[in-house]
């Protein structure tokens, strides 16, 4: 079994990371560089590891093969830029999407609550009545405090009254519509129904009247037509 030196492995890992930091920042790697020392102190590795990864000879302790690989990848792994046509096409697409996102905000931003004045409990001489919206409007801006009591209750009561009135009016309208269908077709149907009963009765009731004394029991019973009986 090969013993695994965890601290040594962590030191190598941290050393590679510090080397990469320096190389990618475009400065030569030196273990005693203040930036390197600061960065290694911030590391989550055990305390002994940053010490092993820093110092004047830290650069020599880095594996030469890894150093060569880093230099090679730094040169060969380049950033690729998309075509100009794609860039502009996507920019246009994003602008369209941004415009679509912007519209609801603009519509919402136009709205503003317009206060209206009304008689309040305080002005009516009954200050003992607390304001039921105190808790709701506790975080309102200071500037609104003067008008808050004037506004809050009438708004609520007015809203409730309006809602109730609308409900009652709606119910009345529905009831009226059910009793008096207003469309021309419904009126025509009602007329036909009324006049049709008078016309149809002699044709459909050919035998003696139902319930009359002279009814022939062998006579077939005519079908019952709803609305004509």
């Amino acid at each position: 079994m090969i013993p695994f030196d965890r601290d040594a492995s962590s030191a190598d890992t941290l050393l590679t990371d510090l080397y990469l930091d320096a190389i990618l920042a475009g400065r030569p790697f030196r273990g005693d560089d203040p930036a390197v020392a600061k960065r290694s102190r911030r590391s989550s590795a055990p305390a002994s590891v940053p010490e092993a990864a820093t110092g004047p000879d830290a650069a020599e302790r880095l594996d030469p093969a890894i150093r060569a690989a880093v230099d090679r990848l730094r040169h060969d792994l380049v950033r690729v830029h998309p075509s100009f046509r794609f860039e502009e096409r996507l920019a246009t697409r994003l602008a369209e999407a941004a415009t679509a996102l912007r519209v609801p905000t603009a519509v919402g931003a136009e709205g503003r609550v317009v206060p209206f004045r009304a008689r309040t409990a305080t002005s009516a001489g009954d200050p003992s009545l607390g304001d039921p919206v105190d808790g709701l409007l506790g975080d309102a801006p200071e500037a609104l405090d003067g008008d808050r009591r004037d506004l809050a209750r009438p708004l609520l009561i007015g809203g409730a009254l309006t809602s109730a009135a609308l409900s009652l009016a709606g119910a009345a309208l529905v009831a009226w519509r059910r009793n008096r269908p207003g469309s021309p077709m419904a009126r025509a149907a009602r007329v036909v129904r009324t006049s049709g009963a008078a016309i149809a009765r002699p044709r459909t009731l050919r035998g003696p009247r139902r319930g009359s004394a002279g009814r022939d029991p062998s006579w077939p019973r005519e079908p019952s037509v709803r609305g004509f009986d």
Partner: protein
Amino acid sequence: MVRPVFGRVSDATRAGSAHADGAARVAHLDRDRALVEAAQLDPLRFDALYRRYLAQVYSYAYYELGDHHEAEDATERTFLAALTNLSRFEERARPADGEGASTFRVWLFQIARNTIANQRRGRRRHPQAPLDAAALVADPLDLEGGAASRDEATAAWTAVGRLPSDRRRALVLRFVEEMSTAEIAGVLGRSEGAVRVLIHRALRTVARDLGDRAGHRGTDARGSREPRR
């Protein structure tokens, strides 16, 4: 175990109270903060962020997918998703993330990573080493030198392409996007220590691969010279 890289902004921190624990304190370090705030207020201002990060996102997608068209698709989806969800973005940087840390960039690359994963899953396509990109590095006027550097770049690309996906991803983010360990940890959802180990192992593998290749080439060259002797 995956350690959260970015701590949440607590209410106490928002209120401005001092924390005894420095690690838990959240500082505003996002260099893109001004641009992000402007874009959150007006989505049309997202264009500045788009221009800044287009090449980076595209490069990342290209290295992951190995195809220009697929990289364009992934880039487009990434930026559209970022624009749509920008209102939900919250800056969460720590002092440990470094002075140049951009949490917006980490957030954007998290979106890119998910987008690329979905795209790859949907198309059942496995990435190959994007060898044709090596042609971008070569100088077209220097034919001999261009061929040599293209050959070297191809070797490096192949070595990186052979890596397991998590190591390759970490390496690309480190070298191509020049991200810090903390930023890569944020993108990949791993701890900084885990990212350091990933990169160190990836470099060792690439170094061994490139060394083997150089050894083979040296043997081939000696073998081809022997008959001349």
